[in-house]
């Protein structure tokens, strides 16, 4: 399968590099269309999460050239120099790319192996690319399969059974500072899925008071209402005046500017008489200024910090992940084999060759009876008449093949009918002659 993946993730790039290359959801559609129109790329999906930016394409050009084009695209679209981007990038092609997509969807490549958010994010990326019209049948099949594999991995291994989410890691850190959480209050900045998951973890840990700050107040209120006792929704502009009321802040917004800066945190700390204030910044680009960490009694953890905390837990998790890797490996091999079988290109080529051979053989056979032909006549017969017949016959067959392939049905019958597998055409002809001869002999 001709698929190419160019990207970076939390293992190859620091958060600074990831935030420079991240795509906001609003820009994703346009970026995909630009990639497909400008580069030699037939299909494309861009997966941009906090921990990874990956461009998955089906290239029209040779792989190396396409990889170069995608890298150039990443630089151009973010106005970056190639030297800033290149060191962090990895390139996977064909089977490696298929395996990588399946590993990512199955959460085997996640910062927290086994976390459940990534599958939703991959599905979202795929839906956006489909809406932008940059998904063709190759990526369609690859992603549909990857979703199925992710589901299987989750069902058959314990990878997600006691998964540590970013939320539960955050709760652990909060307990290192506050000990008891039931009398503490939580502020969410952003009302997305990440915020909700984090809030769930904190509520399970005993937190009872919740503030949700979001640009759209209705979304904030909706999320706040999901929790027992209900929370209060506030606008982002209220943050400076309300920050001191809260003990734990979880930011997971897609905004591109810092919402909470050092002076704001300083004021809040003074107003709360320096009781500790704990920030978790789960967003990329970061929402909470990292230099807040230098204030007394303020603690800031960004995604990279959480990664360090969970490194140890991850080691445990890897044991279960090994089983998942085996599943992914088997699925990759099976997918590639099925894909090759379903790839109608070779079948069409073989079919065309077979039909052309038949036509030309028949023409040669009756050539003498036609008498003298001018070179012009001969060219017309060979280049137009014979090729026309071949193409007319081929057309419905190709349509049938394509339809079958889209439904995932392998066209064994057609290959068998035209004897396209293994046996060379002339050998087949010889076989037929021999068979005929033996029939005659018996008579």
């Amino acid at each position, binding site marked *: 399968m001709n698929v190419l993946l160019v990207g970076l993730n939390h293992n190859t790039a620091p958060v600074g590099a990831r935030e420079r290359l991240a795509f906001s959801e609003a820009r994703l559609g346009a970026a995909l269309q630009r990639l497909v129109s400008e580069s030699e790329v037939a299909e494309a999906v861009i997966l941009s999460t906090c921990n990874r930016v990956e461009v998955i394409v089906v290239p029209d050009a040779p792989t190396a050239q396409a990889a170069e084009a995608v890298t150039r695209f990443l630089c151009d679209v973010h106005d970056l120099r190639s030297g800033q981007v290149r060191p962090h990038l990895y390139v996977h092609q064909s089977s490696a790319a298929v395996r990588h997509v399946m590993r990512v969807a199955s959460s085997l490549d996640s910062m927290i192996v086994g976390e459940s958010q990534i599958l939703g994010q991959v599905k979202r990326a795929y839906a956006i690319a489909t809406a932008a019209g940059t998904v063709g049948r190759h990526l369609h099949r690859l992603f549909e399969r990857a979703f199925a594999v992710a589901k299987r991995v989750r069902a058959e291994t314990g990878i997600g059974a006691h998964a540590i989410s970013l939320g539960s890691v955050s709760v652990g850190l909060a307990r290192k500072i*506050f000990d008891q959480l039931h009398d503490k209050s939580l502020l969410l900045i952003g009302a997305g899925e990440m915020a909700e998951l984090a809030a769930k973890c904190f509520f399970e840990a005993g937190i009872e008071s919740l503030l949700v700050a979001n640009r759209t107040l209705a979304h904030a209120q909706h999320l706040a209402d999901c929790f027992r006792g209900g929370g209060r929704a506030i606008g982002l502009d209220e943050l400076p005046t309300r920050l001191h009321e809260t003990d734990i802040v979880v930011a997971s917004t897609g905004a591109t500017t810092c919402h909470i800066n050092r002076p704001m945190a300083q004021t809040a700390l003074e107003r709360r008489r320096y009781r500790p204030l704990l920030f978790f910044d789960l967003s990329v680009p970061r929402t909470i200024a990292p230099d807040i960490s230098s204030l007394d009694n303020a*603690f800031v953890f960004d995604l990279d910090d959480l990664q360090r905390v969970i490194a140890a837990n991850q080691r445990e998790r890897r044991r279960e992940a090994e089983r998942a890797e085996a599943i992914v490996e088997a699925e990759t091999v099976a997918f590639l084999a099925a894909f090759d079988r379903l790839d109608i290109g070779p079948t069409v080529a073989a079919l065309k060759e077979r039909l052309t051979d038949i036509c030309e053989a028949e023409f040669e056979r009756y050539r003498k009876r036609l008498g003298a032909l001018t070179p012009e006549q001969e060219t017309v017969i060979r280049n137009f008449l014979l090729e026309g017949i071949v193409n007319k016959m081929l057309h419905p067959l190709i349509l049938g093949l394509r339809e079958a392939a889209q439904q995932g049905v392998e066209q064994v019958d057609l290959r068998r009918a035209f004897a396209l597998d293994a046996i060379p055409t002339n050998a087949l002809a010889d076989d037929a002659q021999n068979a005929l001869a033996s029939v005659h002999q018996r008579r």
Partner: protein
Amino acid sequence: MSTLLLIAVACYAFGATHAIFALWQAPSPRWFRLALWLMVAGFGAHTASVVARGWEVARCPLVSYQEVCSFLGWATAAYFLSAYIWYRSQAFASFAMPMVFLFALAAWLLPAPSDTAAVLRFYGQTASLLTVHAVLFILAYAAFAILFVAAALYIVQERQLKRKRFGPLWSRLPSLDICDDVSAKALVIGFALLTLGILTGILGSRRLNGVYWHGDPLEFLSLATWLIYFCVVHYRLTAGWRGRRAAWLGIVGFAIVLASLIGIGWLNGLHVTG
């Protein structure tokens, strides 16, 4: 007395060893329970040894330097056990055990009192008031020892959280809240006792020689101790100081406390011990 004290020291030694091993590897709950019960047993033996000494000499056993150290160890153990009952924090308990052990060990290693009768003669009429003064001081010092342990743990823990480097101790450190709360309580108790101790000292001094201030080095050290802890109390109440700054002041304060403790034994000025 010395046999009972030896039993106490042996019990405390186990607790301290357990705590030191806990620095490298998380101990199993069974070992921790054993260490804790031995600390309780040690405290029992220690209490018995203090009472037996008092019975033996028919006075408050706080005249010789050995008695001072022993009483300090006993008070620290008492605070330590109360803190464990209050917070149920295994981590905090583990780190307080060595402190108790060191005071008790010092008491056991010190030479037996030489001439306590001479000391009592020196203080004469004021002996009983000055005994109260000594008890208050030692109880305050023990509170500051607990504060020191909590402050040190706070600083280590806060450092790891700020630098985001989580060492082997990480999982066993108590939460910042507990460290800060223990510090705050120990501070209140210690500071109140210290203030009372200084007041009784001044009164005793007036009765003894008719002056409030002798210029004795220990008087200066006590004043410094009081000022340091006063700063912590003051800033905690007014500026909302807590955490790291308060913890560092607690550590500096305890350094002066240690200097005073050594001074009691070796500076033979106004404060005479046997």
